[in-house]
């Protein structure tokens, strides 16, 4: 099919570069410089969608971000599918593949439209809420059908092959929109030397100047645009971002810009190139020069393909060399739109009539139209459109001066295109994002940005300023003010304002909804929000039903909730609601826009923070060894910790049994480097420890270690670990692996805010030390082969630490034990970690030195009844609940953190849940962790639960299962039986016992 609507010349397209593309399986041609929409229009494609609710055929109505209908599916392959691409914003490229998103079998011949035609009347706003209720059980069946109609485009089913990126920026002046106001602002700001970012959603800078045909400094405006852009490109501190939408304006002048780097060639882009980039901008000052969107009028059957916004028609003609029809009827409430009729006539096609809703309009453009002999019908309106898949004619009727009713007889005019203009709505979206409420202005018939606390200026159309001369002036002034305020004095000096002629315009009429001879409810459908099929009748119905707040109206009718966010419809909808409620628009409310200005790809927001880089993997110095020795890993916070080291053919349980036995029988080794470590220096270090731990620290001698529990002010355990006295004023604290950062911040909080007079410094040394724990009866023998330290039990006792060398590397060795065995925790500077680890294995072979991971560590410590904070505690457990009153000192002079909390009424109840040991009646049966205890498993549901199993394992050393768990009043129920009902209906019986299953006297660690 030839490009029947393409003009032979004119526009900014390159007719020498022909591009082939597909829409709904058919091949078409367009030119470089086209959008998908202009190319479709050039080819005479009328129907590009079926409407959401009524399945009515829809065509392209606008030329930019405000387009509600032309929302297409894009992509040549499954992986490069993009749902919901706005054809008016998609640049055409060779090989583009697109299709309509609704309609069966296709948008052209949609069978659902019969349902829409017949059932449409059954679907007023809120009809879902009024029906599908009975019987109750049927809703999910009804819903299946409702869901069939959901959605526009579809998600790809394959993973995204493209990459996305983020860039952070700081600038003095951020200018949003590169139309006349934005360019003028940028020019002035740039010349001051300020750091300027200028972003525009379109592929070219210039905004309305690209199609308006206006003049600046006596020459075509596009020449001024080219010169200005050329100069801006030369300024080193200016960043120009075309194809970049400022989608969000956040607090303290933070803006996000969505740049489409390869969307204009989409799946034809070379591999490895960034598809889209988010710019995160912190601006000192912001200039919003976002312009305005033309409002269509609301009239009967105004959704028939061929009904368009007036300025869009001009844009297609002047920018793309496309006349989207043959015979035009223009309906307008204002002078400016006459330009569309003039452009249409200039393109050599027939202007059937200009229907002006005003009784006696006067202005320069009107004069021009009259001069050209165009048929102007004043005091009238297009009240209805004829045609189904394309406009075939209109009904024109005289209306009263207020536009409330039809006052005379209806005349039919034949035409194929209806352009309408109800005036302009400033693009205030961004200014709303930071919480500023727009203000209504009667003189411009629109909302403008309201008060703001941001360092924000506005220029041009966003202020309701539409004369080019004034737009340029406002732009230059805003650019100068922004630069000056950002510290570039005299920015305004010597700037020659670009000049443009003033065009005389008469006043516009505040008209939104065209009356019909019938009441709205009985008139042909008059669409307000095309994407959501919201009609004037729907809005009136909503207000009649009592939805009087504009927010209610919007929610009840879904107006403005589409992907266009009501850019065309919202103001019309508000006006209709206001009229129906007999109040003014500002009384009815305002319209608050949220980010995004236009939709933003999830991938772009995620940037590189997905896949391998989704979250940090922290490794210890010995990680490589673990990998090479077949470890499986457990995620502990961000750490990758060896979980267990299975040998070929071993099950997990077999590996654990082997690791556990080897440790208890000979010697095992654990990489404990992930434990948090905090270096504490200062003369008040000891006192500080006394305040943050629940137990006593006053008498811990140099060379000694002690276990400590840390509570919040509420008395609940939140971390634990061993702290060693390195010297009188020097301690090394260890924390849980996941709790290190939190504990350090906790210590700093108290030091900086409560006790700043205390002389103490805290520094993290988690990463400084590689920590390897050898544990088991042979650990001394093994270590003795490698160290100069006297390991004799009398000189190096349990809970002592010593400094010396291990394998020739300076080391601190802590004789502490989390397994209950004779244990040494060797700390060396992490650079030597792997070296020492390997030396231990060189010497350890004869002792069957066995590496073990977190799982074996858990079993071994559970055999001893040692808790793991975060597993056996959950933020609701006091040290007393844990049976660890031995670790609570109430004789300390200072009321340490947690002491008062523990003494609250609920915390001293005797029937609290308490940590106990659990021994199953069937020794082989391991109670699943998380099982809930009951006294009587036969009781009715809901059962009275006593507490859950926190840790549970099979102990190869003991030959039976062991568990720790919370039991209400458990400390007083030793020897009693509790029951654990399982999901499969079985019940596991267990006896409450001491949590210390092995070596209750602690002899093994003292040998």
């Amino acid at each position, binding site marked *: 099919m030839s490009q029947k609507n393409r003009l032979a010349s004119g526009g900014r397209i390159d007719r020498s570069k022909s591009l082939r593309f597909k829409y709904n399986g058919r091949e078409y041609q367009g030119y470089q410089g086209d959008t998908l929409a202009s190319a479709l229009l050039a080819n005479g494609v009328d129907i590009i969608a079926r409407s959401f609710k009524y399945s009515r055929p829809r065509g392209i109505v606008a030329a930019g971000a405000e387009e509600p209908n032309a929302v297409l599916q894009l992509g040549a392959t499954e992986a490069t599918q993009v749902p919901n691409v706005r054809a008016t914003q998609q640049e055409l490229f060779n090989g583009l593949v697109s299709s309509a998103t609704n309609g069966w079998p296709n948008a052209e011949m949609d069978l659902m439209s019969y349902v829409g035609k017949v059932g449409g009347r059954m679907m007023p706003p809120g009809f879902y809420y009024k029906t599908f209720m009975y019987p109750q059980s049927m809703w999910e069946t009804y819903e299946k059908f409702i869901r069939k109609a959901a959605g526009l485009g579809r998600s790809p089913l394959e993973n995204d092959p493209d990459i996305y990126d983020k860039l952070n920026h700081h600038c003095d002046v951020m200018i949003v929109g590169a139309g006349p106001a934005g360019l003028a602002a940028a020019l002035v700001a740039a010349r001051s030397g300020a750091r300027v970012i200028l972003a525009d959603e379109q592929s070219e800078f210039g905004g309305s100047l690209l199609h308006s045909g206006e003049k600046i400094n006596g020459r075509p405006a596009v020449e001024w645009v080219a010169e200005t852009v050329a100069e801006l490109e030369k300024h080193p501190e200016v960043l120009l971002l075309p194809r970049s939408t400022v989608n969000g304006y956040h607090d303290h002048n933070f803006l996000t810009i969505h740049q489409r780097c390869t969307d204009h060639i989409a799946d034809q882009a070379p591999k490895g190139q960034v598809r889209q980039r988010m710019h995160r901008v912190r601006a000192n000052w912001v200039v919003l020069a976002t312009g305005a969107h033309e409002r269509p009028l609301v009239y009967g059957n105004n959704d028939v393909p061929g009904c368009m916004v007036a300025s869009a028609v001009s844009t297609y003609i002047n920018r793309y060399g496309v006349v989207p029809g043959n015979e035009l009827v223009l309906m307008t409430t204002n002078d400016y739109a006459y330009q569309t009729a003039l452009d249409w006539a200039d393109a050599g096609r027939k202007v059937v009539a200009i229907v002006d809703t005003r009784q006696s309009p006067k202005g320069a453009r009107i004069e021009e139209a009259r001069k050209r002999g165009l048929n102007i019908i004043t005091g009238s309106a297009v009240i209805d459109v004829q045609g189904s898949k394309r406009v075939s004619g209109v009904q024109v009727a005289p209306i009263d001066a207020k536009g409330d009713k039809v006052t005379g007889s209806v005349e039919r005019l034949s035409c194929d295109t209806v352009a309408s203009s109800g005036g302009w709505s400033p693009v205030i979206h961004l200014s709303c994002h930071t919480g500023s409420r727009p203000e209504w202005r009667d003189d411009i018939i629109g909302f403008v940005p309201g008060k703001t606390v941001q360092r924000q200026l506005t220029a041009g159309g966003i202020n309701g300023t539409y004369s080019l001369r004034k737009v340029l002036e406002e732009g230059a002034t805003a650019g100068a003010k922004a630069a000056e305020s950002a510290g570039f004095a005299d920015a305004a000096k010597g700037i020659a304002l670009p000049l443009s002629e003033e065009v005389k315009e008469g006043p516009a009429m505040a008209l939104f909804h065209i009356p019909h001879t019938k009441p709205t409810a009985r008139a042909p459908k008059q669409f307000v929000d095309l994407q959501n099929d919201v009609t004037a009748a729907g809005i009136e119905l909503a207000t009649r039903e009592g939805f009087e707040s504009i927010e209610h109206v919007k929610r009840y009718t879904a107006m403005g909730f589409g992907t266009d966010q009501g850019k065309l419809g919202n103001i019309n909808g508000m006006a209709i609601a206001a009229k129906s409620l007999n109040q003014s628009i500002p009384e009815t409310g305002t319209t608050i826009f949220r980010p995004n200005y236009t939709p933003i790809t999830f991938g772009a927001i995620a940037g590189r923070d997905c896949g391998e880089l989704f979250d940090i993997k922290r490794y210890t110095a010995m990680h490589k060894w673990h990998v090479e020795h077949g470890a499986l890993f457990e995620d502990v916070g961000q750490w990758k910790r060896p979980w267990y080291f299975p040998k070929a053919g071993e099950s997990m349980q077999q590996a654990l049994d082997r690791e556990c036995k080897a440790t208890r029988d000979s010697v095992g080794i654990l990489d404990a480097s992930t434990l948090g470590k905090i270096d504490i220096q200062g003369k008040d270090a000891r006192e500080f420890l006394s305040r943050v731990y629940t137990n006593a620290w006053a008498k811990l001698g140099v060379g000694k270690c002690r276990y400590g529990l840390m509570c919040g002010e509420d008395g609940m355990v939140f971390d634990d670990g061993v702290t060693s006295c390195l010297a009188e004023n020097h301690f090394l604290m260890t924390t849980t692996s996941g709790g290190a950062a939190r504990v350090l911040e906790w210590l700093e909080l108290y030091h900086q805010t409560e006790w700043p007079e205390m002389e103490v410094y805290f520094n993290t040394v988690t990463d400084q*030390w590689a920590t390897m724990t050898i544990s088991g009866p042979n650990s001394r023998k093994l270590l003795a082969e490698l160290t100069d330290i006297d390991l004799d039990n009398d000189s190096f006792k349990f809970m002592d630490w010593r400094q010396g060398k291990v394998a020739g590397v300076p080391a601190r060795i802590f004789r502490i034990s989390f397994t209950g065995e004779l244990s040494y925790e060797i700390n060396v500077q992490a650079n030597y970690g792997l070296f020492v680890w390997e030396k231990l294995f060189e010497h350890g072979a004869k002792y069957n030195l066995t590496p073990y991971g977190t799982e074996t560590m858990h079993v071994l410590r559970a055999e001893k009844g040692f808790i793991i904070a975060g597993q056996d505690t959950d933020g609701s457990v006091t040290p007393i609940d844990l049976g660890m009153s031995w670790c609570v000192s109430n004789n300390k002079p200072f009321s340490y953190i947690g002491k008062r909390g523990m003494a609250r009424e609920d915390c001293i109840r005797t029937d609290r849940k308490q940590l106990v040991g659990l021994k199953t009646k069937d020794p082989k049966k391991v109670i699943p962790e998380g099982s809930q205890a009951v006294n009587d498993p036969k009781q009715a549901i809901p059962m009275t639960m006593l507490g859950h199993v926190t840790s549970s394992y099979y102990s190869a050393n003991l030959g039976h299962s062991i568990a720790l768990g919370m039991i209400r009043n458990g400390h007083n129920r030793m020897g009693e039986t509790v029951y654990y009902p399982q999901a499969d209906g079985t019940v596991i019986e267990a006896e409450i016992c001491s949590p210390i299953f092995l070596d209750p006297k602690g002899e093994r660690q003292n040998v």
Partner: protein
Amino acid sequence: MSEMIAPEKVAANADAIQEVARMDQLAGPAQRAESPLHHADLDTIAKKGPKNGGVTLQEHKLLGHLVIRGSQDNQAFLAGAREALGFDLPTEPLSSVEQGDRSVRWIAPDEWLLIVPGEDAFQVEEQLRAAMGGHFAIVNVSGGQTVLELSGPDVRMVLKKSTPYDVHDRNFPVGKVVTSVFAKTQAVIRRTGEDRWELVIRRSFADYVWLWLQDASAEFGLVVKA
């Protein structure tokens, strides 16, 4: 250099209780030391990888890193630092001083990061301790972090991808040092030359930073220097 002070010995000396534990953590050449990026084998990449690109990465490994803590109101501390180092600790926020093979970075009003050749760490620590008075702390973190140097015309772009901090000339002159967000972790970022920047990162995060830098500089070409 490898003298060790066992706690016993100190405790036994009742007249001068050793207030803090001192320890030369360095072993001899027979004991293999591995920097945090050892596993990435940057040397091989340097040999076999690309020689041209917009970003050059070099790990300055196994240096001596000392965290120095003290109050700027404590003259004995400041004067001691001057005496031991031969220059003042920079008290201007976000500034750094580099003299010879020693460099010190302002981290916080009471915290500095001193980097010296690896073998000097203990000696410098001892000198500082000897010279400083009042309440202060020194912590050897040489094993816990490493220094990455990024250079080349596109480093600034890589930084802009990685940190929300403003790395523009006007805000980040040579010599300035900031601790900020770096990708999902953090780094002490110092500008050491026109197109040269230094990152100090923590050991356990080093592999992540290495992955990140490879990814972020891919479009400019990454050259690894041994």
